[in-house]
């Protein structure tokens, strides 16, 4: 009964999406002007129906209703409750339903709260949202229906991939989807503005909170995903350049570029066409991300949903949306008046530099991610593109970007003198030089990329705080704090990455009980091995005593787990965090009597990588709060007045 209700709600939501588009499109023509006000309520109803449908699916999973095919293939009746709920979106159909539900909520939020924009632009935006949603409803209803029944119902179900049975799962995909969907709203705004030719500061301010919000979620999603891979896969790495990781990185790169260009549009009314183009690109990257993850064309640790027929559907949607947006851009952009021009040495100039570099890095990541797929599809040749390619090409570009990030915020809007900029950069440059000296004295020769990384991080850290100098900190706007903290976060993160790759110590030994091994400043002793039963797994548990110098020893428990449904083994790494880094232990199953294979890493300052990520997201959040306060409420107050720029 619940499955049928959910299915019906999904159909009704699809009808509402169609209505939302039709009413909006008709309303824009002068003959059907009285349809204009009905678009927003339709968007709200559509989102309520999508939510009902998603809640029905959650209930089916909670009840372990095995007569529903999706539940039977992805859940198991003796699975812990938290993973039953998280299992709702731990599979293809459920996660697509979550996608479209979040999309609906995004549309409803625009419908209810967007007041600063011209009504026609708002309606065009909602119509674009309707089209996007319609495509995904069609995808769900015709090729990925989550509510299909099976007869007879199996007793227990097949279970969830054990790698996914982790608290991170409950949180990770929804976070990324919020980011993807936020980009779709920004895209709809761009389409709306193109349709009504209303590209200007007001439009930029309406769009900015969505970009910021999406960007915050993507940042959190990437940071959390990186930490998940780090502790769950037990390989000691924090980024594998896996296509699924790239699928979240590419929208982030585009969103970061868009975030900066929309600021230029809002403040100086420059970069009109550029900003529109970037929002199309950012949404395209979100779609490509969804396609890569959901189509099952990838060979990676993440590709759990393998069904190539669905890939075709998403690919067609992708082509329609991107192609349609590009065509609209080509047709309309000539009729949108140019914005103001800008000087090369100015804040605007620096932000254009930022945009060019981010786009360049985006192309490098995109080519590296899609090349193996394209090559295999056309010639059948199989190859994998990994860290050697991405690090050597994108790494140096990212470091140049960091230098730009140090200089940019110290430049004035409109026009600045090169000499004055150099003076303002004096302290950061000195600090970078000092860092070089310290590394040369205390560390000795290191690989070039980590070395440059550390030096640049020191310079950027100093430069990112510089915009606060000689300012009344109380009266500094919240979004300036946001910028400072986000940029500082980049420096912190880069420092962590460089420290990890330059200073990590590793040991790999087969240990008998009682044996010891040194790694970094620690001495690790294997004290005991025992078998531990879990709810649906049993584990080989290693009790390891860890001591650093004369300080008190502590105990760590790496495990090797064997799951029953489905049968699979995973490593549960044990991680101890100190102020200056992490000790990381992994135990393997012994193959003969030479001992238990144990891998250990001492990773100095590796935690800075994720701390930086959190700071970046926090900076975004402060900006968002500051912008909503200033743009939306002030925009609301000045609604109807003509924008006049300084």
């Amino acid at each position, binding site marked *: 009964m619940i499955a049928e209700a959910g299915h019906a709600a999904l159909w009704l939501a699809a009808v509402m999406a169609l209505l939302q588009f039709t009413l909006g499109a008709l309303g824009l023509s002068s003959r059907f002007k009285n349809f204009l006000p009905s678009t927003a309520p339709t968007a709200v109803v559509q989102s309520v129906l999508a939510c009902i449908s998603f809640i029905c699916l959650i209930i089916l999973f909670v009840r372990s209703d095995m007569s529903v095919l999706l539940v039977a293939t992805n859940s198991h009746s003796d699975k812990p409750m938290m993973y039953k709920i998280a299992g709702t979106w731990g599979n293809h159909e459920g996660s697509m339903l979550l996608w479209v539900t979040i999309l609906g909520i995004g549309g409803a939020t625009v419908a209810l709260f967007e007041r600063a924009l011209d009504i026609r632009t708002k309606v065009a935006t909602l119509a674009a949202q309707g089209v996007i949603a319609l495509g995904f409803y069609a995808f769900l209803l015709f090729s990925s229906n989550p509510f299909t029944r099976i007869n007879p119902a199996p007793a227990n179900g097949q279970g969830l991939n054990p790698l996914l049975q982790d608290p991170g799962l409950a949180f990770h995909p929804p976070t990324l989807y919020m980011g993807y969907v936020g980009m779709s709203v920004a895209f709809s705004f761009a389409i709306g503005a193109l349709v009504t030719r209303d590209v200007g500061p007001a439009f930029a301010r309406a769009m900015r909170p969505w970009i910021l919000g999406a960007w915050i979620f993507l940042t959190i999603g990437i940071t959390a995903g990186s930490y998940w891979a780090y502790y769950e896969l037990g390989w000691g790495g924090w980024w594998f350049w896996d296509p699924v990781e790239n699928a979240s990185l590419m929208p982030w790169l585009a969103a970061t570029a868009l975030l900066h260009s929309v600021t230029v549009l809002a403040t100086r009314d420059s970069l009109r*066409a550029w900003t529109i183009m970037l929002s199309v690109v950012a949404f395209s990257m979100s779609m490509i991300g969804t396609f890569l993850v959901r189509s099952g064309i990838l*060979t990676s640790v993440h590709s759990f949903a393998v069904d190539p027929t669905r890939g075709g559907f998403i690919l067609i949607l992708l082509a329609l949306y991107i192609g349609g947006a590009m065509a609209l851009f080509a047709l309309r952009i000539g009729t949108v008046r140019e914005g103001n021009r800008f000087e090369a040495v100015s804040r605007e100039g620096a932000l254009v530099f930022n945009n060019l570099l981010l786009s360049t890095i985006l192309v490098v990541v995109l080519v590296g991610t899609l090349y193996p797929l394209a090559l295999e599809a056309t010639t059948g040749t*199989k190859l*994998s*593109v*990994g860290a050697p390619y991405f690090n050597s090409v994108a790494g140096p570009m990212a470091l140049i970007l960091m230098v730009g990030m140090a200089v940019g915020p110290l430049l004035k809007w409109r026009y600045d003198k090169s000499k004055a900029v150099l003076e303002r950069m004096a302290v950061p440059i000195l600090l970078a030089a000092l860092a070089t000296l310290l590394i040369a004295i205390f560390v000795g020769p290191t690989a070039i990329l980590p070395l440059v990384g550390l030096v640049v991080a020191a310079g950027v850290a100093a430069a990112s705080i510089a915009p606060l100098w000689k300012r009344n900190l109380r009266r500094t706007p919240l979004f300036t704090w946001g910028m400072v903290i986000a940029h500082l976060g980049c420096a912190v993160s880069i420092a962590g990455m460089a420290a990890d790759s330059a200073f990590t110590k590793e040991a790999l030994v087969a240990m008998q009980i009682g044996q010891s091994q040194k790694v970094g400043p620690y001495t690790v002793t294997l004290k005991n091995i025992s078998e531990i039963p879990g709810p649906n797994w049993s584990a080989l548990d290693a009790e390891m005593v860890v001591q650093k110098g004369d300080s008190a020893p502590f105990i760590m428990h790496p495990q090797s787990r064997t799951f029953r449904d489905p049968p699979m083994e995973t490593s549960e790494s044990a991680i101890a965090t100190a102020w200056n880094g992490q000790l990381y232990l992994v135990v393997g199953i012994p*193959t003969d009597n*030479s001992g238990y294979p144990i891998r250990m890493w001492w990773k100095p300052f590796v935690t800075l990588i994720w701390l930086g990520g959190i700071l970046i997201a926090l900076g975004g959040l402060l900006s968002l709060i500051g912008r909503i306060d200033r743009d939306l409420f002030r925009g609301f107050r000045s609604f109807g007045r003509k924008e006049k720029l300084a």
Partner: protein
Amino acid sequence: MKPKQQRLLLGVVAVAALVGAGFIALSALESKAAYFYTPSDIRQNAVAVGKPIRLGGMVADQSIKRGMDGVTVRFIVADENSQIPVFFKGITPDLFKEKSGVIAEGSMARSGEFIATNLLAKHDEKYMPPELSKGLSTQGASKP
């Protein structure tokens, strides 16, 4: 410069930067991408020593020899016609065993041995890397 000219200039610079990035990316791929080989592919085409590649096939029966230190392992990856000896130091994946599929990442050594830096084992058919099942079925080896 008028706004229109600047917009044009910006567009040209952007397109040039992106095309340039594309070229850099493609030329870097030439040297940095790891191709997928079966044992027969390696026997038929000389693979440069030290070039990163992926080797996929079945772990031959009775071929796994563990080192005395407990963390090194030697085994043979085979397909219908050819065999390649592989050396690996590390914790072998949980389902790494004889007569099942494996993908080894690494490079050929001068000795003719494949030095693996990472092993991806077949978990079960549900989670098997697709390229492995394809590579094996075209070889006529056992289907997963």
